[in-house]
């Protein structure tokens, strides 16, 4: 289980390759990449975070995923700072014996990371800058992981 928080770009393909490489202990590897989307006129995105808390929150989310599903490994990389359209913001990867677990754990990581890890996106475009608003759908997505 590894968590990385960094300003530098990372190579999504190389990370996927290394993560899946020779993994005869798992049968299923799922990865997700979040990419800066250009919905029209986006010049750049700035990602602010809360150093210290970010790492703790991501570690906790990854530990929780490992507790809930029989994961052989799990990886979270999240960038902060300035990013251009098409750049990779973050990724998660999970490895499990069976695909349903690998998929569920990756979706769980994404849902929690979206609403519980201290990152904030600001978009800069032709019309100025604006903080991205949290989506109700993201908060609601957490409901499906309730263990009650």
């Amino acid at each position, binding site marked *: 289980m590894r968590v990385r928080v960094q300003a530098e770009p990372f190579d999504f393909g190389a990370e996927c390759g290394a993560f899946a490489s020779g993994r005869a202990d798992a049968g299923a590897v799922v990865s997700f990449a979040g990419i800066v989307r250009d919905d029209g006129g986006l010049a750049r995105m700035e990602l602010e975070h809360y150093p*210290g808390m970010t790492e*703790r929150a991501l570690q906790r989310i990854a530990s929780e995923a490992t507790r809930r599903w029989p994961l052989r490994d799990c990886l979270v990389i999240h960038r902060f700072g300035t990013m251009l359209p098409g750049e990779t913001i973050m990724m998660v990867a999970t490895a499990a014996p069976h695909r349903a677990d690998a998929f569920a754990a990756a979706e769980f990581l*994404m849902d929690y990371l979206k609403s519980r890890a201290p*990152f904030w996106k600001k978009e800069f475009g032709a019309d100025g800058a604006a903080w991205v608003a949290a989506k109700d759908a993201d908060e609601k997505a957490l409901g499906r992981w309730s263990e009650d």
Partner: protein
Amino acid sequence: MIDVLYFAWVRERIGLSKEQVESSAATVADLVEELKAREERYAAAFADLAAVRVALDQELAEFDAPLAGVREVAFFPPMTGG
């Protein structure tokens, strides 16, 4: 003395990313009331508490949480990572 941190638009409205506050507030809500009473920019940042989240010593918390023993309080909008 308590470290108070602000992020994203909370930081921008208050015009400050971090400050040390002398406070005897019992809860987060009490601290927010003290800050709002200080200056208009704090009142503006905390006008709608439904849009503000709080962390105590880097753990998400509620506004009615006690501040006893807490060294770092952070205020910020709902998170938008991923």
